[in-house]
């Protein structure tokens, strides 16, 4: 497998246990190079544990993890030269000024782009002499992102980057990521439950629930196969058309079903064969798909 074919991240059967609690349960996923990969999950789903293990910050109980073709536990130090990370909680020392942070990072990365960092800070409107601890939550994330992007990484990992941010800060952060993608085609791996924000930039998603990866595919494919079908009457025998239902529930006097393998021809066959008075098919947003897959089970 040559360099281009090597996935940016390949996780195979990762399990993370904290005592008796299983945080990540035999998770496997592959992040292709140049993709924007969103790992979705509710709080406590195991996303951050998976990210920390993927970055070699924590040892998984079992499983293999390769990042940019190398074992991320064994070769973390070397790999971090090529990876930009924005942690879930801004983890820079609060006493350090933004300029000191930049200087510190510049001394560690051979490719640290000071001009790009300064330009981003200007765009965010953050003064370099401000102590990191005095920044707002959104500003901390912006500084962390500016530092991560200034290292000109091949892969950027964003762990719930919009958590606790207002709409403006969220947009500003995603704009920077989009610009980075446009400029350099950097691979982006992010975990989030901000589905509206990520829907516009992600091209591949995985959904994590109770430590398990319950779904992983191209976003367009995912959106194409998930449909909400509302029937005026109930019950409806959806399995007659070989539809897999992610969710079936009452909807007024009728039935609402979310199917995960929607097909126009199959639906037409169902409508023609069954005595269905009225059925309304609608596309679903990523958030709706996520709620159907991960939300209702909670």
């Amino acid at each position, binding site marked *: 497998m040559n360099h281009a074919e090597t996935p940016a991240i390949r996780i195979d059967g990762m399990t993370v246990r*904290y005592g008796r609690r299983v945080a990540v349960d035999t998770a496997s996923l592959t992040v292709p190079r140049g993709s924007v990969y969103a790992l979705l999950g509710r709080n406590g789903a195991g996303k951050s544990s998976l990210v*920390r293990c993927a*970055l*070699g*910050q*924590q*040892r998984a109980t079992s499983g293999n993890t390769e990042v940019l073709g190398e074992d991320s536990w064994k070769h*973390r*130090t*070397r*790999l*971090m*030269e090529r*990876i930009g*990370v924005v*942690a879930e*909680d801004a*983890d*820079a*020392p609060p*006493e*350090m000024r933004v300029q*000191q942070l930049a200087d*510190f*990072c510049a*001394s*560690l*990365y051979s490719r640290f782009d000071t001009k790009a960092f300064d330009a981003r800070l200007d765009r965010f409107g953050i003064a370099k002499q401000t102590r990191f601890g005095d920044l707002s939550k959104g500003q901390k994330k912006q500084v962390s992102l500016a530092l991560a992007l200034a290292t000109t990484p091949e892969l950027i990992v964003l762990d719930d980057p919009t958590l606790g941010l207002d709409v403006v800060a969220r947009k500003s952060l995603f704009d920077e990521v989009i610009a980075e993608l446009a400029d350099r085609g950097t691979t982006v791996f992010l975990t989030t439950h901000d589905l509206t924000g990520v829907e516009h930039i992600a091209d591949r998603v995985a959904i994590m629930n109770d430590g398990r990866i319950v779904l992983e595919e191209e976003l367009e494919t995912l959106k194409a196969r998930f449909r909400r079908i509302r029937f005026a009457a109930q019950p409806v025998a959806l399995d007659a058309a070989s539809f897999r239902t992610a969710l079936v529930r009452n909807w007024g006097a009728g039935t609402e079903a979310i199917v995960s393998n929607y097909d126009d021809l199959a639906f037409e066959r169902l409508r023609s064969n069954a005595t269905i008075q009225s059925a309304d098919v609608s596309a679903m947003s990523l958030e709706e798909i996520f709620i159907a897959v991960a939300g209702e089970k909670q």
Partner: protein
Amino acid sequence: MSHVLAIARRDLAERTSVFIAAAVLAVLPFVLPAVPGVRAFSYTDVVTTVGAIVAIGFTLGLALVLGVTMIGRDLSEKRMSFYFSKPLSASAIWFGKLIAAIVTLVVCFVVLFFPSYLAGTTSWQRSWNLELPVAFAIVGGAALVLLLFGHVFGTMFRSKSPLVALDVALMAGAALAIAAIIRPLLEGFAGDLITRVAFTLFAALMLILLACGAWQLAHGRADRRQNHYALSRFVWVSLAIVLVVAGLFTAWVVNVSPSDLKTVNVSQPEEGSWSFVFGQAKHRMDYHALFLYDLASGKSMRLHGIRSWFSSGLSRDGRTVAYLQLPDYRAMEGELYTVQPGTSGESVDTQIAVSRYSEFVLSDDGARLAVIDGNGLLTAYELASKKALASVRVPNTARTMRRLFFVSPELLRIYIQSPQFPTMKVAEHGVDIYEFDVRARSLAHTGQLRTDAKHLGLAVSADGKRALMVADRDSSATARIVDARTGQLIAEAPAEGLMHTTLLADGSIATLKKDASMQWTLNTGGKQIPVGKSTQLFFARELAGGRLVLNGASNLVVVDYVHGAVLRTDFDSAMTSFSYPQWYAADPRRSVADASQPLAVHQKGVLYAMQPLSGEKKEMFRF
């Protein structure tokens, strides 16, 4: 290395407030003398004393705080991922932070200490009585210990993991293991070796603690509990290896036989063939070992007691040995043990606790034991039942030499001899004689002796009836034969020094005298027996049948004093006996050895059992 320095610089940049605090505190010693109540003291004394106290206190306190926080705080506040999301190795993070902490401590100490020190260098030297480099080494060493222990305890306790309970248990186990490693060396008087072992253990521990941070971060990384687990695993496994090696070393050190000794001293009683062999072991620095050694068979028994000639003894029948076992060589008090040499019996703890400066003797049959301590408290014990039979306080025992023996199982005679040590000038010496009736629990003052001397020697005949008191004045000596119970004078005659005068079995005196040409003559019972030329010669022991063994630096002579004949001479044989008149043994009685008993002699690093009459030698072991 650049990453190490980057981390160190980062941590140091955070500590500006600490440096400012140190600078502010450095002013305190100069302000304090202005405070009412302090003005009465010398300005420079106050400045230097307070300056040193503040500098040391601040530095040590800061060392502990830095130790607890330098890794532990980042872990507990979940900020370690900041470092691990960058191309920084665990070693760079640890050593960078460690260097920053050490630099912080050094800078703070210098800022706090030097202004006050420079204000009164003479006063400082007078107050602290320490060379500056020594003082720095002590403070620096203490600070490093606090820093590293602070880090370990900080990581353990901040993890809030139940593993802490195991750590505490292992700490206790390690302390017990160290005690188990050191204690046998303490019993072997190995002060230098203990210092070396203790220093090595300490250095190994410091190396473990220096390395543990890097290991901890390499294996625990950003996770608090995994850090604790990695740290504990590294510390305890490394320490276990060190302790096992140290334990094996101690086991090797203590596993000595008489042939492992490089210096040998033999204390040989007249009865039986068992002797005490004591010496320093080969390749073990100053480790010493004590054995009971059978000159007839070469069998030996290891005793964990202290030196034979002042704290152990054989009963007159040669069957029972009592010896003092101290918990360590510096201990002032220990317990008496008894053992029957030549039997399969183990040493028996009599549970009699005695001071190392107490005197004790066994009854002739070994069934009873009497102990007199420095305060004159005399107690007789029955060994079989481990019971104290009777006690009494013997008066006027301060700064005296206490000597005693069982006249019979129910009667003890005590000689309180003063002063305790030879004097520089000729002065009056006295011996008070007491008898203690064990059954009646009554003490009687039966007599006393007075004489002028520099050295006073007192010996009692084997039957306990006559005593010889030699007043040695260096230039002249006088010998008195007295009643051993009352001190009443029987005869008085000029004598030689203590090593050249002895009391014979028949109650008469023998002296050795040399002329200007180094020719020695034995004088006894009116006979003058020439024994040959030697630079040195003294009485070694008396054999049954009226024979005397004389010994010098390299000469051995056996004389039949009854018939006035020299039976054997081994001049210039480099053969030396270990026997000599024990003027200061707890039991003052002289005894006569069976002529068939082998005599312990050494020649060119070999211990021999020699038949004194035939000169036949049997090699026992080399040392």
